[in-house]
Each structure stands twice: as C-alpha cells, then as structure tokens.
C-alpha cells in the first residue's frame, strides 16, 4: 500500500488516544493493528517521512537519508566501542524505523530459546531468565505475522531464487555436510502479494526496498492504519519525556515537533517502541520525584541486559567472479549450528546468513582502521568475493547496559545513551566457532583467501526493558505491559527476555500483534 496522508488529526489535549512512540516493526505494527480495531492512535516518529520511491542505490547517501545519526557513545571492551565509538548501532530514524533497513530474515525463535535459564543453567556472569511466554503461546501469532509479512516457505509462499552469493554458500555448506541450507524464510515477496511486487534482486536491501517487496511498516501497517481513519502519523516528532499523574499512571508525552516546538500530547495509554537504545533512554530521562530512577524501573532492570547478538562476518575470495552485490542481500541461510549443543564449548546457537556490502561499505567495514598492501589486495578481489554473517545468541548481563551519558547532550540538551558492552566468554567462544565454520564453508567451495570481519555497529538491539514473570526480574509482563505502570507498554525488541539466535523482527511483529489483542481487551474491560 502506498505511503499516504492522515485521514484524521487528534487534538493535543485529547486524553482518549493511545500514543505509540516509534513507527518501526513494533510501533508501526501495534499502531496499525489498534487502528484496525477502531482504537484512536497517535503515532509519533522522530524521523522524517521518506517514501520508498525516494530510496537511494548509494550506501553512504542512504545512510545519511535513513540512519539514526543523533549522538550516542559506546563504552566497554567490545570491539565496536573501539572501531565505531560514536556509532554503536546502525538503526534508523525515519518513518518505518529499522524495518526500512532490515534484511528480511524472518525466523521463529526456537522453543528452548524461550527457556534459557532452564536449558543453559545459571551461567556465571550472565543474567539469564526464562521468558514468561512459551513458543506454543506464540505460534498462533507467529502464523499471523508470517502471513501478514509474506514470509517465504510459509503459508504456501515459495522461496526466493538464490543469487550468486547463495550459490557459493550452498556449495560450501553441502560439501561440509550441513543439511539445513536454503534461501530461507524471508519477509521479501517471492511472488506478487498483498499489493506489493516481488523482489527485483537489486541488492540494496539495507538501503530500503525501492520496490516495496521487502516487508516494512512504512508501506504496509502504517498506511493501513491511516486508512482506517483511527490513526494519525506525526513524523519529525521526537519524544523527550513521558509524563505521569500523582497516581503514577502515564498521562501523555512531551515531544519536539518538526518546527522545534515543545508539544504535549495527552494519552490514555503510551506504548514505547523506539528500539532498545532509545526506549530505555526515554524511561530513564523521564525520572521524577515519584520515580527517581526512571519510569517503570522499580526492578532496576531498565537499560540492563542489553543484547546485540553475537555477530561476525566471513568474506572469501575466489578464482572466479561472484559479484555478491547482485541480488538479495540476505537470502541464504545455514541453520545447522543453531541448535543447543554445549559440546561445541558454548551454550546457544547461531545461524550463518549471506551478506553483501557494496564497495563503499566493504572498504569501511572489512577491517576498520586498516590500510596497506594486504588490505588493498583484499579490495582488488572485491568482484571475486562472497560473504556471510554469523548471527547467534549473546548472553544477557546486568552490566551490559544503556545508561545516560550526562557529559554528552543531544540537540535538545538531553543526555544521550551510552552503550556499554563487555563480551561474555560464551560470546567470544561462539564468535570464534562461527569464524571457523564460516571460513570452512568457503574453503570447501574453493576459496583462495578468507577474511574474518569483526562486528558492525549493532543492528539487533535487544533486552533493555525485558519481560519477566516476577516484577523484580524485569520491566514488563508477558504482554509488554510494564510491571509498575499499567498504562505504559513496551512494544519493541527491548522487551525480549533473551536474544535467541534468530533475527528479531518477526518476533517483534508477532509480539505487537499479541499486544494489540491484549490492549484492546483490557481497554474493552476498562481495565486500562
């Protein structure tokens, strides 16, 4: 559905509306679902409205167009803090949020990954916890999410055709004896579906899908919500504070509008979906006399247990051309290593997924800070190079966290988020294993040389407002409703109790569908 305008505008003092903050996979889906149920929603988005027809086949120009470039800082011993000290995460500030940038991999979290404390045990140095949800409870909503998003190899939708990069992965994987390698489950249309065309194999998935073949809330849930006449989208509206009354219920938000004016939007209910860095930052920056440690933070867990997946990339050069940039960025997956198998020396598992970078990003990310003849030789082999990304479960740690950096302020004079990570030994062991297996895949396919590439700025940011059975262990319950404030909800990946090995967007959308049903039910009963 094409990007469109609002059919309705709500008054700033209308206290009956639901305010959703953030229009990505979580917030965009929740807002659209509530509107379809007839609930009035104001959807506030910090970024601009950029329609997919304006997306650019140019990595750096697109980064400037879509990425969140407001200040952030990084600390800790993780390599990202050294390589990208002011860019700990690569996520978006645009209508549609990071659902514009994601590559489309749509995998269900495995049943045992909802029970990590039970399955892995109480590993020293971790804050593992079972989700207050099971896979069985999630499955009906996973079904709905997959159907809505057009996930390949589900509900009768065919797989995507493999490109050159996939052919290399597949040849190596099968020679190595892996059994689970295909073009995967992708929320990218393999056929014309839901009013959107099929993938044209552009290769600019990270730069936003120009044709709209890849699911994004930008051109699905958001315009569908607007079309109901129950949802108003306000781009360039950056929320800086959530307000509450003397009873401790939230009453609305303060935001800066496109003209830089500070506005107050009243609300019956506020749903927070700004990704796992900005969501806890907003809760912490909303501290008050009643909530001196920030909103919804009686557990002290707001901002903690930050997870970003254990990641790494392996690139490899061959005697013959690959041209990895041609076609879908991430449409090849090996899942044999995703099972729980502690014999490998770590708990949790990982997937290997094809990845490609254009020349501008390949040179910037291959070995940050590098120069010299060896680096130049790797670049000389660009057209002969294939690539894959390792994405696995990292361990939640209380000390891996988002805090307010009181020394660095944003354009509104508000403390920015500092992202602190120290890799757990389990993360390091998994990454080393991923490097070895990724290289083995390519050597089996005949690689001349392999390149082990450290993590990029985080794209999968999770866990900083996690859901828990007991209020002492987390920030929200199994519906994303904060334990402390019944009309404040967490609606993004920050509610994940643990990270699992799977790309998170499908689960974020699934939780939003489930949450919309819950909110509508609670509102119907006047419970909230």
């Amino acid at each position, binding site marked *: 559905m094409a990007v469109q305008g609002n059919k309705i505008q709500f008054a700033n003092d209308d206290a009956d509306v639901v305010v959703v903050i953030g229009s990505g996979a979580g917030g965009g889906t929740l807002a659209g679902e509530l509107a379809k149920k007839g609930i009035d929603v104001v959807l506030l988005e910090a970024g601009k409205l950029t329609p997919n027809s304006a997306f650019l086949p140019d990595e750096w120009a697109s980064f400037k167009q879509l990425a969140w470039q407001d200040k952030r800082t990084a600390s800790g011993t993780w390599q990202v803090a050294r*390589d990208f000290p002011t860019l700990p995460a690569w996520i978006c500030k645009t209508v549609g949020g990071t659902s514009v940038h994601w590559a489309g991999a749509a995998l269900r979290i495995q049943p045992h990954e909802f029970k990590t404390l039970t399955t892995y045990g109480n590993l020293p140095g971790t804050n593992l916890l079972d989700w207050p949800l099971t896979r069985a409870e999630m499955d009906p909503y996973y079904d709905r999410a997959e159907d809505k998003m057009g996930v390949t190899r589900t509900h009768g939708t065919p797989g995507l055709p493999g490109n050159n990069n996939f052919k290399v992965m*597949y040849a190596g994987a099968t020679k190595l004896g892996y059994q689970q390698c*295909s073009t995967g489950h992708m929320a990218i249309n393999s056929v014309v579906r839901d009013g959107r065309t099929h993938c*044209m194999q552009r290769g600019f998935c990270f730069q936003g899908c120009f044709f709209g073949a890849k699911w994004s809330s930008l051109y699905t849930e958001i315009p569908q919500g607007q079309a109901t006449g129950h949802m108003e989208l306000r781009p360039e509206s950056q929320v800086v504070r959530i307000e509450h009354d003397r009873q401790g219920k939230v009453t609305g938000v303060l935001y800066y509008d496109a003209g830089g004016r500070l506005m107050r939007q009243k609300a019956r209910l506020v749903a927070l979906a700004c990704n796992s860095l900005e969501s806890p930052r907003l809760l912490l920056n909303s501290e008050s006399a009643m909530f001196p440690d920030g909103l919804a933070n009686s557990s002290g867990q707001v901002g903690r247990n930050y997870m970003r997946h254990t990641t790494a990339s392996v690139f490899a050069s061959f005697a013959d051309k690959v041209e990895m940039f041609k076609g879908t960025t991430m449409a090849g997956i090996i899942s044999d290593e995703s099972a729980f198998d502690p014999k490998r020396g770590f708990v949790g598992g990982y997937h290997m997924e094809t990845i490609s970078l254009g020349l501008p990003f390949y040179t910037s990310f291959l070995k940050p800070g590098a120069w010299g003849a060896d680096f130049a030789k790797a670049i000389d082999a660009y057209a002969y190079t294939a690539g894959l990304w390792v994405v696995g479960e990292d361990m939640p740690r209380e000390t891996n966290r988002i805090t307010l950096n009181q020394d660095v302020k944003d354009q509104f004079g508000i403390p920015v988020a500092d992202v602190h990570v120290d890799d757990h030994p389990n993360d390091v062991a998994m990454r080393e294993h991923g490097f070895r297996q990724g290289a083995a895949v390519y050597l089996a396919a005949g690689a001349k040389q392999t390149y082990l590439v450290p993590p990029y700025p985080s794209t999968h940011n999770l866990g900083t407002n996690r859901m828990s059975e007991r209020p002492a262990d987390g920030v929200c319950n199994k519906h994303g409703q904060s334990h402390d404030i019944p009309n404040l909800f967490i609606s993004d990946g920050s509610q994940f109790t643990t990270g699992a090995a799977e790309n998170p967007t499908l689960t974020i959308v699934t939780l939003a569908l489930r949450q919309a049903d819950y909110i509508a039910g609670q509102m119907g009963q006047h419970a909230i």
Partner: protein
Amino acid sequence: MPANARSVPSIRPPNAAPASSPLSAPTRRELLKSTGLLTGTLALSSALAGLAPSRAWALDLGTFSSHQGAVILAFSRHLYPHPTLDDAVYALVVKDLDSQAASDHAVQQIVLSGVRQLDQVGGGDWLKRPPALQLVDVESMQGTPFFVTVRSTAVVALYNNDMAFAHFGYGGQDGHLGYLHKGFNDLTWLPEPPDAASGPIPPN
C-alpha cells in the same frame, strides 16, 4: 564533526555526494589560477576512460598548492596501493581533503603541517624520496592527526565514486532497477543448487 573524533579510527560519512565524474578538462581559467591544480592523463587502457570527459584531467584546488596536493596524492597511494588504479581516482582524496580544509581551519592546519613534515623528511620535497622510504615515512606517521585525517578521508573518498566502482567491478547504481533479468544468478563455475533449496524466478 569535531576534530577530536579523528583521533580514533571511525567510519565517517563522505563530505559530498559521490562524484559521477569529478574530473573536468582543464580550462584556461584554471591554468592561469594561482591556487593549486592537479593534472594527469588517463591511461589508454583505463576502464575509466569512458567516465571522464577527456583523457586529460584536471582538479582545481581551493586551499592546497599543486605540490601539497601531489604529496597528499602520493601519501594516499601508499595507504591504499592499487597498482593499476589511476591517479585520477586518488585525486578525489585530495579533492575531499581540500574541501574539508576550506571550511575547517583545524583540518587545514593538520594537513599542511603533515605535508611540511614530510617535505622536511624528504630534504625539501618528499616526492623526490624513493618510494620504499616514503612507505617507511607513512608507517612512522601512524596514529598522528595527519595520518588519521588522510586515512579516514581516503578510505571513503577513494572507493565511493563511479570510477572506483568501474575499476573494482561494483555495480553501484546499475543495480537500481534490479538484477533479476541482469545476471543475479549468472555464476556458472559451481553446481546449481536444487530447486528445494532455492526458489522459482517469478514471471514478469
């Protein structure tokens, strides 16, 4: 971007949109100007010949002298040595630094003092120093503001332009309308994956 951010290796978006053809044929006005000018001639065999308005190219400098520009170009070649990559592409690093220096006095001072230091090491003209010794000089400057500034500019400017795309075999904007009917799966030196692992090519 604050100058102190350059003290650490970091990705840095380019200052300008990628140039489709940053080169121009030298004009009489440019040849008469007192500021710097970098000139060169594309090799006959160069894959870039079709991207430039003529084989002779010129880059007008607003801040640096011709000599300073040539030193920066030579330094960039040592940082990212691609033997068959034309000087015309390395000239884009000079161009980017020249425009940064025009608007940022700190950058200007960092670059000019670095070039001065290199010239001193080279007995007045670093360009006359043997290439092997030039490389030693580059290595010994690692971590200095000059090195960090030139390297962080070069790694973006050198590889983010159509001439580099042509040289290294990246499609760039050619992919805008998709490779579905332009060879996305044209690799033939490995076996075809079975249908069960891949998927059908959609009908038009």
